[in-house]
């Protein structure tokens, strides 16, 4: 492993300028989709195959009755125990040397299993190419020692990238500095994500952000239990059949045996 990197998103500094959203489109050459006004600055309304990061706008009234306007940069969390990579049948989704989860687009067969498995709802499907797409943390830029396009564009210092330990330290000291409900989100589940939030509010407050994300139990049963069981059980049956043949023996019609001569047992 070259170096585990973490992208830190300090939402207390985000002004929702959406520079990251545009920079992502520009660097990754993602076209825009025709959209409509849904009464929110949040546009498009959700992540898309061609929108890998998105600022979510949320009006939140806290327990004291104060109206707060919450911004959250949504996108791939780059899990260590990544459900998407776990289910991918062709290893199109894979872990890079930075710990991020990248995509070999040519290997994707459009089975959509990652879409269903991801606890964050990140991978999105494109019908035209029959493939899924998602943020790859600007893998090519990381390889060139450049920060991801979103980090490069951020004017407020909300987005930073660096070594995992340093970023975590920064995150915790910032949360402490903010006080109140401020907390660090990302290092405590799925063996740690490579995108870490400093959330000014409790995680439960944010829309579309699971408070306790994990690889779904069904996915664990499928890939860690039933997948090996398929071969083990079949192997056991073959071994059992062989043992049966050499111990109990086959059930043979009587015409092929004889009772003449020899000793009967």
């Amino acid at each position, binding site marked *: 492993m070259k170096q585990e990197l973490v992208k830190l998103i300090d939402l207390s500094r985000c002004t929702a300028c959406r520079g990251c959203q545009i920079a992502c489109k520009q660097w990754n050459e993602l076209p825009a989709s025709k959209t409509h006004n849904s009464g929110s600055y949040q546009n498009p309304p959700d992540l898309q195959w061609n929108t890998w990061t998105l600022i979510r706008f949320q009006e939140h009234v806290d327990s004291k009755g104060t109206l707060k306007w919450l911004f959250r940069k949504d996108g791939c969390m780059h899990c260590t125990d990544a459900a998407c990579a776990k289910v991918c049948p062709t290893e199109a989704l894979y872990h890079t040397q930075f710990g991020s989860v990248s995509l070999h687009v040519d290997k994707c067969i459009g089975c959509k299993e990652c879409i269903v498995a991801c606890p964050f709802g990140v991978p999105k499907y494109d019908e035209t190419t029959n493939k899924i797409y998602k943020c790859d943390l600007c893998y090519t830029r990381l390889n060139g020692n450049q920060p991801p396009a979103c980090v490069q564009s951020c004017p407020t210092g909300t987005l930073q990238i660096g070594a995992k330990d340093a970023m975590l330290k920064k995150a915790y000291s910032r949360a402490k500095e903010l006080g109140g409900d401020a907390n660090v989100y990302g290092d405590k589940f799925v063996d740690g994500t490579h995108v870490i939030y400093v959330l000014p509010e409790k995680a439960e407050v944010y829309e579309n952000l699971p408070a306790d994300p994990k690889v779904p139990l069904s996915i664990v049963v499928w890939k860690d239990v039933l997948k090996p069981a398929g*071969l083990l059980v079949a192997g056991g049956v*073959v071994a059992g059949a062989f043992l049966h043949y050499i111990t109990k023996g086959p059930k043979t019609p*009587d015409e092929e045996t004889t009772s003449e001569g020899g000793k009967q047992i």
Partner: protein
Amino acid sequence: MKKGMIKATGPAERVVHWCVALSCLLLCITGMGMMYHSLNFIGTLVGGMGNLKLVHNFGGIFFTASLVCTILMWWKEAGVFSFPEDAEWIKAAGGYLWHVDNVPEVGKYNPGQKMFFLTVALFGAGMVVSGFIMWFPLGFSVKLVRLMYVLHALGFVVIFAFFFIHLYLVTIGAPGSAPAMFTGWVTKAWVKKQHPKWLKEMEKHGTLVVSGDEKTS
């Protein structure tokens, strides 16, 4: 046809059997090519993993049709247990596992075969339903699709294991069985050994067809 053979199956039964058997095998092989990364090379045989998925998906349609025919054709004969003889046969494990002086006599299909039929019918239907939902996952709720993955994998574990039991019994485990699904004719000794009650029933009702007899011509 050698004289004195007994007719065990008709052409329709054999065609349906091989349709469901070969499509099931195709789905097992192509499915394993996607489930196990070390078997991804199976995709290469059909020109890539994308094609493998297509073969699996459309093979599933053929399997569905075959399965419907299978169930319709054998439900009455192999889908219903008849008591008490089937229970006694199960208690003796059909004489397959330990020594039994007199294996309880059962009809055309023994309870082992009935269990195999019911497993194929039940898990096969489960595979069809879960497979269809996995094919078009975005039209269903995430929770349901995740459950279908588990069902599909469980169905594979069961069907794949049963396939080897079936294969063992019709080849070396119970010699003389395989011709029933190739030519349709089996020896009288085999019927006497495997399905004595069925033989008696056919003799009693006059439905026994023996090669070389006037009836067959």
